[in-house]
C-alpha cells in the first residue's frame, strides 16, 4: 500500500491554551470551563468600543519557557500584530497575534518515529496570541459565549520536516509532555487545551523543492485521528497525482465514522489578514539578563529520561515510562534514594514499579512502596535460559507482534516483553527479556 515513489511532507502547528489565572490582554479570570456564559467578560475581551489590551506578564513568561525548552532564541525585539478577519467568535474583528516579529524563533526537537530512527524537527517559531469565544449552533441561530475570548494561547510551528505520521505522533506526545512538565497547561486534547493542525503534501522522492500546495488538516482533536488523517491524505494525494490531477490548497477535516478526510474550505478563497503592528501595545524587548527564565527551567522530560538511564542504569523503556509524568519521576527518585538504604538496586526498583504498574495512588508514598518491594523479597528471574524459553512462548502467542517487528515496527517488541513479564508476575528482568527477544527475532 505504501507507494515508495513519493514522500510525505508534513508541518505541524500546535496551539496550547495556557493555565494562567487571567486572560491574555485583560484581568478577567481565564477559567472558563463550565461557567455561566458571558460571566467572565469585560470591555476588553468583549471587544467593546474604547477598551484597550494590557499584556499578561505570566503568559509571556510561559511562552518563553516553551520556546527556550525547544531550543529557540527569544527575539530581542518582538511585536504583537492584528490579524484582521470577521467571525462572530472574534469580538474585535481582529485577533491580537504575532506575525513578522514572533517572541521565539529557530528551535528544534528530536523525535523518533516507528522506524526507530531519530529525526530533528525544526521549530520555526513559538509565538503568543489570544483565543476566541465559543460558538454553539442551534438550528438557524448561533449562540456566542465570550468567556473563552482572550484566554492566552501559545502557537508552536514546525518546519515541514516530518516525513511520516508516527514522527508527528511522537512530536505531539513530547510537546504535550513538555507543557505538563513546565506546568503551563493541562494540554488536554479533549478539552481543547491543546489543538493540532497539520499541513500535508507529497512529492516524488528525489525532488528537492517543496510541493506548491499544502492540505491543511484542522479541527482534529486526538493524536490517533490526526495520524489516521495524515495516512489517509498521503494515499489520497498520491492517487490524485498518479492520475495526473492537480492538487490545490485546501482545508480538510477528519470524518471518523467514514474514516476519510473531507473539504472544509478551499484556501484559494483564503482571507487576507492584513497584519499590521498592534498600535495599542508597545513592543517587547528582552535582553539576555531577563532570561533567568532559561536557568529556572525544570529538567526537561527527554533530558530526565536520558539521565535516568545513565544515572540509574535503567532501560530506555523503563526510563520512558518513569519520566512520562513529572510527579511519577520525582516519586521514583525518592524511592531510589530510600531503596539505596536497603541495598535495593535502582534497576530492580524500576522493573518492579513499571511491571507492577504501580501507581502513586495504590502504593501511597515512596517509602511504603520500597518496603513492599523489600518485603516481597522479589527474586528477579535473570537466568537467560529461562528467559529464552519464556520469550519463545511469547513469540508463539503473539505472531502478529513478531511480524510487525520484523517488518520494521520496532515498538512491537514491547508487546512480547509484556507477555514475558505477565507470565512471571513481573519478576523477569525486563531489560534482559528484551535483549533476548531481539536476538531471537533477528
Amino acid at each position, binding site marked *: 500500500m505504501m507507494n515508495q515513489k513519493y514522500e510525505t511532507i508534513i508541518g505541524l502547528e500546535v496551539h496550547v491554551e495556557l493555565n494562567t489565572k487571567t486572560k491574555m490582554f485583560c484581568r478577567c479570570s481565564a477559567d472558563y470551563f463550565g461557567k455561566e456564559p458571558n460571566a467572565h467578560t469585560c*470591555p476588553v475581551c*468583549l*471587544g*467593546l*468600543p*474604547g*477598551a*484597550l*489590551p*494590557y*499584556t499578561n506578564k505570566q503568559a509571556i513568561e510561559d511562552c518563553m519557557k516553551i520556546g527556550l525548552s525547544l531550543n529557540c532564541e527569544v527575539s530581542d525585539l518582538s511585536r504583537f500584530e*492584528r490579524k*484582521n478577519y*470577521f467571525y*462572530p467568535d472574534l*469580538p*474585535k*474583528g*481582529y485577533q491580537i497575534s504575532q506575525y513578522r516579529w514572533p517572541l521565539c524563533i529557530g528551535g528544534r526537537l528530536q523525535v523518533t518515529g516507528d522506524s526507530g530512527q531519530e529525526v530533528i524537527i525544526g521549530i520555526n517559531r513559538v509565538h503568543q496570541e489570544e483565543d476566541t469565544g465559543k460558538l454553539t449552533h442551534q438550528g438557524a441561530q448561533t449562540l*456566542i459565549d465570550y468567556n473563552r475570548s482572550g484566554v492566552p494561547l501559545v502557537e508552536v510551528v514546525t518546519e515541514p520536516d516530518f516525513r511520516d505520521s508516527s514522527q508527528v505522533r511522537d512530536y505531539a506526545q513530547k510537546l504535550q509532555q513538555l507543557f505538563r512538565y513546565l506546568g503551563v497547561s493541562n494540554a488536554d486534547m479533549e478539552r481543547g487545551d491543546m489543538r493540532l493542525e497539520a499541513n500535508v503534501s507529497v512529492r516524488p522522492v528525489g525532488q528537492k523543492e517543496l510541493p506548491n500546495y499544502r492540505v491543511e488538516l484542522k479541527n482534529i482533536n486526538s493524536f490517533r485521528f490526526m495520524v489516521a488523517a495524515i495516512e489517509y491524505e498521503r494515499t489520497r494525494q498520491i492517487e490524485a497525482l498518479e492520475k495526473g490531477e492537480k492538487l490545490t490548497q485546501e482545508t480538510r477535516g477528519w470524518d471518523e465514522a467514514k474514516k476519510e478526510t473531507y473539504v472544509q474550505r478551499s484556501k484559494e478563497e483564503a482571507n*487576507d489578514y*492584513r*497584519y*499590521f503592528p498592534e*498600535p*495599542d*501595545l*508597545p513592543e517587547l524587548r528582552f535582553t539576555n539578563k531577563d532570561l533567568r527564565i532559561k536557568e529556572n527551567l525544570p529538567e526537561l522530560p527527554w533530558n530526565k529520561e536520558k539521565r535516568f538511564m545513565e544515572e540509574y542504569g535503567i532501560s530506555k523503556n523503563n526510563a520512558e515510562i518513569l519520566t512520562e509524568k513529572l510527579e511519577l519521576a520525582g516519586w521514583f527518585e525518592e524511592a531510589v534514594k530510600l531503596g539505596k538504604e536497603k541495598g535495593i538496586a535502582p534497576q530492580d526498583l524500576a522493573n518492579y514499579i513499571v511491571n507492577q504498574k504501580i501507581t502513586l495512588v495504590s502504593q501511597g508514598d515512596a517509602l511504603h512502596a520500597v518496603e513492599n518491594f523489600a518485603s516481597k523479597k522479589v527474586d528477579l528471574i535473570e537466568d537467560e535460559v529461562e528467559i529464552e524459553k519464556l520469550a519463545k512462548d511469547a513469540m508463539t502467542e503473539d505472531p502478529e507482534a513478531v511480524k510487525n517487528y520484523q517488518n520494521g515496527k520496532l515498538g512491537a517488541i514491547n508487546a512480547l516483553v509484556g507477555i514475558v513479564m505477565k507470565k512471571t508476575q513481573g519478576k523477569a528482568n525486563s531489560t534482559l527479556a528484551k535483549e533476548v527477544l531481539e536476538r531471537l527475532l533477528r
Partner: protein
Amino acid sequence: MNDLTKLTLIETIEGLKAGKFTEKELNNAYLEKIKELNPQLNAYLMVNEGVKGIPAAIKDIICTQNIQTTAGSKILSNYIPQYDATVINKLKNEGVGVIGKANMDEFAMGSSGENSAFGATKNPWNQSKVPGGSSSGSAAAVAADLCVFALGTDTGGSIRQPASLCGVVGLKPSYGRVSRYGAMPMASSFDQIGPITKTVADARKVLEWISGPDEYDSNCVAEKFKFQNSKFKDTIQNLKVGVPKEYFGEGLDKGVEKVVREAIDKLKELGAEIVEVSLPHTEYAIAAYYILMASEVSSNLARFDGIRFGDSRDKFGAEVKRRIMLGTFALSTGYYDDYFAKAAKVRTLIKQDFDKAFDPAAAGVDVIVGPVSPTVAWNLGEKVSDPLTMYLSDIYTISANLAGIPALSVPCGFSEGLPVGLQILGKYMDEETILNVGEVYEQATQWHSKRPDLRFKI
C-alpha cells in the same frame, strides 16, 4: 447675581470654595442657558439634567457609564456604555460632573461637524458657519458658555482646529500623557483626549486632573502632569520661537496669515527670539497621516458588527465608509509595503524634523508656532463635496499627531469677524512650556475675554 456661566474653571473652583455660589446654582445657570441655546447650536446630543459637580461637556466618543454614547453615529444611537472611561473616573474624583454629551463628526472623522449623524453643530460666532471638527460640540459649548470646560479628542487636529474656529483654548497632550481607555478609538497611535477651555490656566488644570499612568492603557506611560513653575511661567524673555517656513506658503488665507504673524510679533514684543525653522517633510504629512490613520480606523471599526451592540454596518456614514475602504486597501496583501510601511517610515522623518528643530545642537528652539487652520470658519455645506479638499485643511495640525508632540491652540485675533487660533507646539512631554507660553501671550492680549453675541438667532 453675576452670570455664573461666564466664569472660567479656575474662577469657578475658587467661587465654590469661597461659598460665593453653590454647585446647584452653578448647574442651574448652565442648564438654563443650554435649554435656550442648544436647539439652535446643536452642541449637545444629550443633556444630563441631574448633573452634580462642576459641569463639563464630554465629546460623545468618550464612554460615560449609563449615559448614552453615540460617537456621532447612527450605529450607536442606542448604545449605553457599562463602564466609564478612565478620564471620566478621574474627573469625577475631582468633583466634575457630565452636563452633557457633545456633538461631533461621526467616529471623529471630519473637520467641520457636518459628518455627525445627528445634524451639524453651529459656530456660536456665526451660526451659518461650521464650528470645525471633529470635536465640534465641545468647542461650541465652551465658546457659548454652555459648560465650564469640555473634553475633546485629537487625532489630526480635532481639538485644536474647532478651538481655533470657535475662539477658545484647545490642548492636544503628548501621546501617552492621558489614558485613552474608554475613548472609542479612531486611530490608536494618534488619538489623545484633551481639554477645550476658556483660558490656558483652565487647560493646565484639566490636564493635571486627567493625565497620569493607567493600568488599562499600555501606551499611557507618562507621569501625571504637574505644574513645575519652571522657566517661561510669567515671562517669555529669551524664549526661542521657531516659525516653520513650510507653514506660511500657498493655501494659507491672507487674512489668517496676517493675524497669526501679528501674534508672532507680539511674542517678540514680549521678549521672545523668533527664528525661521524648516520642517522639510511637511508636504508629505497628509498622505502619511491619512494612510496610517485610515488603516488603523479600518481595523478599529471592525468590532461594530451588530452582535454585541450597535446597528448594522450599512449604517456607517459616507466619510467613515470611505476611510474604512482606504485603510483596508492600504493594509491588503501587495499594498502593505507601499502604503502602510512606507507611511510609517515617512512618519519617522516627520518626527525627526521636529527633533532637529528642538535639538540644542541644531536650531534649538523651545517652541514652534504657526497657524492652526488655513482659513477661518467656512459656510455650512460649502466643502462637503470633495473629501480630498477637506483632508488638505489638516496640514498644520497633523504633524503633531504623527510625531506625538503636544500642541496648544490659543485665540489670537479675528479675520472677517471670525476667530483665529495660534498654534504652539512643544517637545514631547513638554506641555509645561507650551502652556506657559500660551498663558503669557493670552494674558498680554484681550482675545480670551471676547465672547460671541448669541442674542440673535438665524
